[in-house]
Structure formats: C-alpha cells, structure tokens
C-alpha cells in the first residue's frame, strides 16, 4: 500500500516531462492565487460545520463546549490555532487558560484536528468574522414510551440503524438492566443526557467529533428519527440510573443457574461417556505392582 502511494507522483512526473511540466505548474499556481481570498472564508465555514458544530455554537449558548461567539476577542489568534490543533498537548504543557477550560468543561478532551496550518488559520479567520445567530432550539416532543423502546433497541443493536451503522453498545455501556455488558471502549453514557443536553447529543450524533466514532459512522449517518429515539432513551435513564441496583431475581436465578449447570454437565457426561481413562496395560500394572 505504502509503496503504491509513493510510486504514483513518480510516474506522474515522468509522464509530464519538459515544457509540459512547467506549464502544468504555472497553471496550478495561477489558479491557487486567484481563488485564495474567498476560498479561505468558505473553507473555514466548512470546517466549522464539519468539525466544531457538534459541540460548539456561535451565539447559540453552551453545548458540550463553550459558545464561540466573539472568541477571537477573548483569546489570541496564535493561542486559538494551537488549541484547535491539539488541545490535549496544550493542557499537558500546563498552559493556565487551557487547564482552566479543561476543568470547567468536565475534563472532556477536545479531539485534536489534523488540519494543515493554513486551514487552521482559515478556521480561526471564520470564527473572527462569523456573526452567528441564536439558533432556535428545535421544538422537541416529550419522549414517548415508543421512542424509548426504539432507542433501547437501537442502542443494544436488536434493531439496526437505517444506514447500517454499528450499535451503540459495541463501544458504550449504560447502567440499565436491559443492557448486559455494553462495550468498554468508549465513555459510559448513563449521565450523557445530563451532561450534554439534547442539543449536545444531537450535535454529536449528527456528525461525531471523536475520530473513532466519526470513522465508524462515516457514510452511515443517523436519521433524525434515530437521533430522537436515542436521545429519548438516554433521557429516560436519568441521573438516578447510575445509583440503581441491578434487578434482584433471588431464588429464581439460583435455581435456573443450577438447573442449567446440571443440564450442561449431563450433556458433557453423555458426550464423554466413552473417553479413555485407564492405561492400556492397566491389568498388567495391577498384577505387577504392589499398588500405591
């Protein structure tokens, strides 16, 4: 794979020999110069929509992270570029502003972005210019029992997502009797609704900002109904679920367990009835040795 990739530019250079090569470079240069200014603002907006809008609003209030309206007045441009590129390393370096932000927003690490420096500048430039608007909250009907059931089914994978995305329980766990052994690869979601609120959840589910999750749902985006159902389910868990005790089955569990174990052992005994337990020469040994 790696070799195949490095070979491609080589072959291209070989093909575009001599004067044609010079011309190609010249045309490319012209194109990039003319479109630079307007392209920068557009690119910034696109990046914001794709990478940031799940957790941040501009003028819409706090979601998972802070409202970014007027952020360029609060922070320097250089600091913003560094923070967006890798907030975790900035926190690790002990930058006081960075640590304060990290503490304030529940020690939730903002994912690193892999944008080249020029693109980062474009993004910061967009943040500086964007007016934003208080996005009207979508009116949300109270969660119905149907929604909650559907959300549970989607979460544990007994119903599949329309576009075939993986079930939540592959990576996440919640404290709920219906979910036995959800995944431990990602965050526990029992209190997700309290922490993130409906708009935060919606943002994350619509375009996941976490690299692994983004990759898992790439091209398998969730529909609005699915997002509503999952949000309803997570809301139904409520904060109290994290202190809930598992359902107590008492004697029923003990009896069922013993019966199952008994049945399995009977099955094994039947299967292994004819196994070889004695050495071939047992009779000779019994005759010739004194016995232990």
């Amino acid at each position, binding site marked *: 794979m790696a070799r195949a990739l490095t070979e491609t530019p080589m072959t291209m250079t070989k093909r575009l020999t001599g004067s044609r090569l010079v011309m190609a470079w010249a045309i490319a240069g012209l194109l990039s110069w003319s479109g630079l200014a307007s392209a920068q603002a557009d690119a910034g907006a696109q990046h914001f929509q794709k990478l940031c809008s799940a957790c941040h609003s501009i003028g819409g209030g706090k979601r998972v992270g802070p409202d970014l309206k007027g952020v360029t007045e609060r922070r320097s441009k250089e600091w913003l570029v560094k923070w967006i590129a890798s907030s975790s390393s900035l926190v690790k370096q002990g930058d006081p502003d960075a640590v304060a932000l990290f503490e304030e927003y529940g020690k939730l690490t903002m994912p690193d972005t892999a944008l080249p420096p020029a693109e980062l500048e474009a993004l910061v430039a967009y943040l500086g210019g964007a007016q934003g608007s208080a996005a009207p909250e979508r009116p949300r009907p109270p969660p119905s029992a149907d929604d909650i059931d559907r959300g549970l089914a989607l979460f544990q994978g007994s119903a599949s997502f329309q576009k075939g995305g993986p079930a939540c329980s592959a990576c996440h766990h919640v404290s709920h009797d219906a979910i036995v052994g959800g995944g431990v690869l990602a965050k526990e979601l029992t209190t997700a609704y309290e922490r993130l609120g409906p708009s935060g959840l919606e943002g994350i589910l619509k375009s996941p900002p976490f690299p692994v999750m983004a990759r898992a749902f790439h091209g398998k985006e969730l529909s609005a109904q699915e997002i509503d159902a999952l949000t309803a389910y997570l809301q139904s868990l409520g904060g109290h679920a994290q202190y809930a005790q598992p359902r107590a089955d008492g004697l029923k569990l003990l009896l069922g367990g013993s019966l199952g174990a008994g049945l399995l052992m009977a099955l094994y005994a039947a*299967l*292994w009835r004819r*196994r*070889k337990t004695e*050495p*071939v*020469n047992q009779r000779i040994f019994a005759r010739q*040795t*004194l016995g232990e």
Partner: protein
Amino acid sequence: MVFHLDKCIGCHTCSVACKNIWTDRKGAEYMWWNNVETKPGTGYPQKWEDQDIYQGGWLKDASGNLRLRGAGKAKGLLNIFHNPHLPTVDDYYEPFTYRYLNLIEAPPGDDQPTARPVSLITGEPMDVKMGPNWDDDLSGTPDYARKDPNLEHLSPAEQEAMFQLERMAFFYLPRICNHCLNPACVASCPSGAIYKRGEDGIVLINQKVCRAWRMCVTACPYKKSYYNWHTGKSEKCILCFPRMEAGYAPACMHSCVGRIRYIGVLLYDADRIHAAASADTKDLVNAQLDVIVNPFDEEVIASAKANGVPDSTIKAAQNSPAYKFIKEWGMALPLHPEFRTLPMLWYVPPLLPVMASVRPGDQSQKAKLNDMAKTWTDDWLYDTSTTELWGTVEQARFPLKYLASLFSAGDTHAVADKLKKLMAVRIYRRFKTVGDVTEERMKAALRETGLTQESAEGIFYLTALAKFNDRFVIPPAHREQAMEMLEFTGDVKGNTGFGFRERPERGL
C-alpha cells in the same frame, strides 16, 4: 527418508541423540520424538497401532470422502474441552529418577539406605511400571509381544508358530515423525498451529499459536505428537530443521551406528495427494508412489522450476538416496499406509534374521565352500546359500502376513517382492565374492525381481558402503527465499546492527 531395517541393531543411539538435543527438558521427559521398538511388541505408547483405542488417522467413508477418525470439525467441537481418546501418561510411561542423594545423606539407622524412584512429574516416590522401551528384546512375552496389534490378521496357529522357541525372532522398528504428505495432525488442529513447510516438507507445531487442544495427539495415528504438561503446548519431531538448514543431517540420522538412515529430496505432485490418500486400501502404496515424480523427467524439471523450486533442490532430488530406494529400485514401503496419512518415512523391510536351514552336513559339499561359510563342528550345516532359500521367503520366520500388516496394508505380494529383491542382491554378491552360486542362478534371481547387475551393485553400495554424503543429500535450505515470502526485508534495511525479531527483555 528411508530406514533400512535389515541394518538396524537396536542400539537406541538415535533416541539418545534426539533426547539429549531436544527433549531433555521439564515436561518433555516422557517424550521420545525418536524411539526404537522391538517387533513383535506393543510399542510406545502402548498399542499405538490399535486405532480402536486411540482413534488416529483418516477413514474413508461410504461416499469415498476422507475424514479424520477421532477428530474433525463436529467431533472436535463436541470434545474440545475434553479430548476423549488421549493416551494416559501410563500409556507412555511416567518419567522417573532415583533419589541418589539419599544414599549419602540418609541419617544413621538399622537399614541400608536406598535410592527410591521418584516421579519426575509429581516428585513423589512411585512404583516404576514402564519405560520407553520396556519390552526391548522381549520377543516372546505374553504381556507385550503377543499383544502386538499386527497379530490380529494372523490365525492362532500362525501366531503360535511365530512364538515357538526355536523360531522365535524379533527385529527393531525405529520410529520418528513421518512428516506425512496428508498429515492428520495438521488437519485436526483447531488453532491452525501445525503446518507443513513448503520448502522441505517438515511438519511443525508453532509454539506461539498452539492452544493445547491436543487434537493432534489424538489425530496422529503414529502417536508422534506429544503434549508438554509444563509449557501447555504440544511438541513433535522437528526433523532437526536448524541442522537441516545448515546442511547437516538430523541428529538421529547422523548418529545412527548401523547407518540405516537415508535422507534426500523427493519431488511430488501435491495436486495428486488427495486422490492418492483416497485410493482403495490395496492401492494405497502404489498411489503414493505415483505422487512422487521422476526428477530426471524434463517436464517435471520444467514445472518444478516454474513453481520456484531452486536448481540445487532439483539436483539434490536427482541424487536422492530416498528416490533410489523408493522409486528406482522399489525396495521400500511406508509404515501402516492404511492410516492414509501418506507417511514420507519409508522402510526397507527386514530380511533378518538370516534365513538359513540346518541339516546334516555333506562333507563333499563342505569342501566346495569358501572360508566365509559357517559350519557346525558336529557335521551339521548352517546353510545360508542353498537353492531352497529362494522359496523360504514365503516361509520366512516372520510370516509375510505380519510384515504386510506393518508395511503394506495387508498386501503380502508387495512385501514378498521387497524381500526377494533383498535376497537377489545377496545372491548376486554371493556370486561375486563367495562363488558358491552359479551365474545362471544369480541371473535368474535378478531377472525374477526385475533388477539388473548395475542396480544390484547400486543397492549393495548404498546399503553397505555408503558414506555420509551418499546417505544424506540435503540441498541448501534457501531460507532467505522462504523468509522473503513472509516479510519485506527492505523494511529493516539500514537499521542499526542486526536488528531484533523480538524485543529483548531489557535494553532498547
């Protein structure tokens, strides 16, 4: 590989060489990757040939498909946590040592101190019940020799005749892993840990992948895969591949005192293996012979080259002593072909003990004999040369049926053919050196067995005079090519020093 049983003296040097190099470790004490059995006898582990007990090897079912007798997908899944047909440790033997220190350190007392045997597994004192060659040289014992599973095909009268005191005889059967063409151990492994190496056909167990299901122990009908209770992995003969890659013969072959062992390249057509393993029982040996191809055939050479077989390997195949014994002269047979694993260790069956007749000596006859001929002082002639001997192949001290049960799935003609060839070479050499056989008789003997004077001379040379380089024809291993199939060596080019295949525990 070819083992010439006529030459085996049963000294166990091969076993000891192997043990000292490979299995002198905790958990491996009971393993004998190479062992030498006395036949008739029950062998090691006890009665390994009896597949009603151990369920090893392949079976051909009613529809003609091959399936494993005791393992396989469905059976393996049902028995995966408890393999029901495993030998117990007493079927091999419980390894032991003696408490020698007690002889020196015992406190003063009324009794003489003794060195009690203690188990190498538990460390507790134990009764020694068995050893790896417990029935060594004990041909007639009712407990061992007469329980040989191969006697099943003999009538009670024939069995009785075998064990009459004056006819009693035995021979040795050295056994290592056969490195089969259709290995049952490989097919049975649920972890996929066993594989047959493409470059030299050695069957190996990957110790990192092995999960100790022990299906290979059951599946191998020769019981040559062993479970190491200390490491929790199964192990088997590795045909000394580190030695082979360096151009040395395996230790058992190198150390063989009787020089009975030959190793060389055999080219075979892997596409025909399945058909050969599914052949009718009586055709199994010939089908396996057909799989082995002629290394002098232009077509074979061309297709071998097309498949990436190095020239040095093709050259070695042309000089292979194994090819000569097995294909060119047709003197060797595989051990228990009816297990359908297509074993690639072939045996030249034993003509020994020397067939002779004892009769009142004829003094006029005696005068004609060379000094080499043995005569009894009391005028009885111990005659190894008379014309009747030709006929005695059929009435050998070992009934042909017995040898056929070992080497040819019951086909007595195949065994008789090999024995007659051995006899014909003797008659030929007797004509050359002793001179008491007429030329016509010698020629008739060769003609009947399809040998020529040249081939008889070749057999004699390879049997009696062959040097290391004649017996062991091992081509360069070309490990570099095998390695480059699995990894791109350019990845480590330019690294400091030799690099590491595995991280060292300290450093780096």
